[in-house]
């Protein structure tokens, strides 16, 4: 069998990254958008770990930072979502247009 090289991890990370991006850009529900953002962050984590196998432990350290940051960001994002829901009674991204001209 072919050995699992870091290349495979990178490809996986890229695929997840792409899926996450498409999710952010196309989904209507704000919660799903937030989930897609998490997916992007996790893809980045995977990337970092793969590279850490090659080049030192800094990659893993950095991915711990990213996970912490993702958690905080999810909390804040959900807080904004709840505040927005209280005002507008919807979780439809198309209706977040208060700054429209």
């Amino acid at each position, binding site marked *: 069998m072919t050995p699992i090289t870091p290349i495979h991890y990178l490809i996986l990370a890229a695929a997840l990254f792409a899926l996450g*991006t498409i999710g*952010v*850009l*196309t989904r209507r529900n704000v919660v799903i*958008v937030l989930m897609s953002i998490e997916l992007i962050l996790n893809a980045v984590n995977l990337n970092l770990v793969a590279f850490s196998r090659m080049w030192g432990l800094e990659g893993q350290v950095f991915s711990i930072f990213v996970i912490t940051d993702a958690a905080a960001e999810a909390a804040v994002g959900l807080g904004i979502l709840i505040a927005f829901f209280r005002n507008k009674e919807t979780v439809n*991204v*198309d209706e*977040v*247009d*208060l*700054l*429209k*001209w």
Partner: protein
Amino acid sequence: MFFLDYIWLIPLFPAMGAAIMFFFGRKIEKPAVNAVCVGAVVLAFLFSCGAVWQYTGWSAMPEHAHQPFQKILYTWLGSDSSHLNFVKHDGTPAAFQADAGFLLDPLSSIWLLFVTGVGMLIHIYSTGYMAHEGGYYRFFGYLNLFMFSMLTLIMGNNYVVMFVGWEGVGLCSYLLIGFYFHRKSASDAANKAFIVNRIGDAGFLLGMFTLAWYFGSFRFTDINHLARTGNFQIGDPIITAAALLLFVGACGKSAQLPLYVWLPDAMEGPTPVSALIHAATMVTAGVYMVARSNALFVLAPTAMKTVAIVGALTAIFAASIGLVQNDIKRVLAYSTVSQLGYMFLALGVGAFAAGVFHVFTHAFFKALLFLGSGSVIHAMSGEQDMRNMGDLHRRTPVTHWTMFIATLAIAGIFPFAGFFSKDEILWQAWSSERGAYQWLWLIGVITAFMTSFYMFRLMYLTFHGRPRMSHEVEHHIHESPKSMTVPLIILAAGSIFAGWLGVPHSLGGSNRFEKFLEPVFAKEAKPVLAEQTPGQLAAGQKEAEHTNPTEYLLMLLSLGLAAAGWGLAWKVYRHADKGYAEPIAAKTPLVYTAMLNKYYVDEGYDYIFTGRRKLGPARLGVMGLGDASAWFDSRIVDGTVNGAGWTTRAVGTLSTWWDRWIIDGLLVNGPAIVARVFSYPARLVQWGLVQWYALLMVAGLVGFVAYYSYR
């Protein structure tokens, strides 16, 4: 010495009289007014006699020989000499100081005696003359105020006190001339007198201050002492200037050319006023002042010459006008101006004592003439025009004979008073300064002829000829009461005997008048001419005891002319009937009209100075200058100011336009409009769709990555 120590009471008595009239005059009866006011002047006269008597004793004492007596009460103006507060001409500091002080010397003694004496007689006369007039207490109050001022003038020991008196007599002259103030002519005449006097006063003040600046003091004794011992050059320009300025003051007060115009109009006042003020006392103030300043004039030959020439010209000018006047008081007024000219002629040629002597004799006969004319007017129920008089000598004998004596005196007939004084003046004019003034003698002699003629004309027209008055007036003719005739008689005695005080050496007399005045004039007068030939006597000094035969010749000549004037008047006017002809009018009507209208001098002054008459639309002289300045001010200066205002407003309007359209429009609103214009499309970028923004972010990211990986 009682009267000398209390010399300050002399002006105080009439001052008190005036004050009592001011406060209580309205409420007291005529006899009380008489007692207060006439009594005040009588007391002043008695005290004056006492003071002069004691002065002669005092000055005979060796330690006081020929000194004037001074009594200084207190320092009135300025500080004592420890405070030096103005700068003299040579830069040294001096103290400005004027004392309330009195001076008595031979010169002021003479004035004191005749001012109080004649004043007393006129006050007594006025009780009769003004008996039926309103404002009796006011009249006597003013008369007493006048006596106070005149006495202050002659008794002051410095120029400032003299000026107080000078102004005071001017004021009283105004008050008394305008006594009948309801008449416009009287109040106009009063204004004229005061204003013309004031012009002279300006000269007096300037002269006085020049003297203080030059000598450092106002006192007569200081200035005279410095002038006589101070090595001043003869013809010193500052002394000449001061002397001329003082003489301007004298011209105003003593009615010389060109400031004489107030005196004839001053006849609007009651006759005792004309007698006192305009014949005997106020108008002699100028003569007094020049005589008092003789030490200065002697140092300024130019000034002396001016005084003499002005005096002589005034004398003949006024006499020529007096030849044809028809109002009895006008004739006497011009006669006064003319005689004053004689006095200044005397002073100008250096014969100071002769001038003062003429003042003295003139006081008697001129006062007598005026009071006599008052008596005539009283008898004629107020008529003053001689054309309507005539044949009064039988009905008013005392008036007639006293006036006749006065006329003889003024015409210079021997042995009456005027002969000695006038003759002395004419002789001095002939003989002083190697005959430099002989042409002035000629003017004086012609004037003497005219004087005799017009005075006897007055006598004949008034008292002789046929009666030319209306019948009602004729019925009322009566001699005046004793209160009026007794002063006339006393003055007549003076007109006869006063001249005998000054009988000259040539006629065997000892000229006691001149001797009495020696300490004031002759002893220290310096030579007037720069070069002096040996044997030449200085002007003002007494001649050596020998007499010049020319003097007798001139005496006979002037007597002859006086007699000729009398004779001519007798021939022409002796039988003057209604519509009598004036000889001058018949022979030279143009000259007659000119003289009758006083040579149109007043009209000339109206054109040149007062601006009351115009040449077409414009006024001449100073008033015209004022008109031109007013026009300039209102048109050009104000026009400029208005123009500046208009310019400012125009600039303001321009600024407003600029501000509104350019600044606000272009520069402020412009960018705003541009911003708005560009913002319309620009805002379209903001859709409000979050995912769209995210897509743009991703697109940008992809672009970056592509760029960097394919670089």
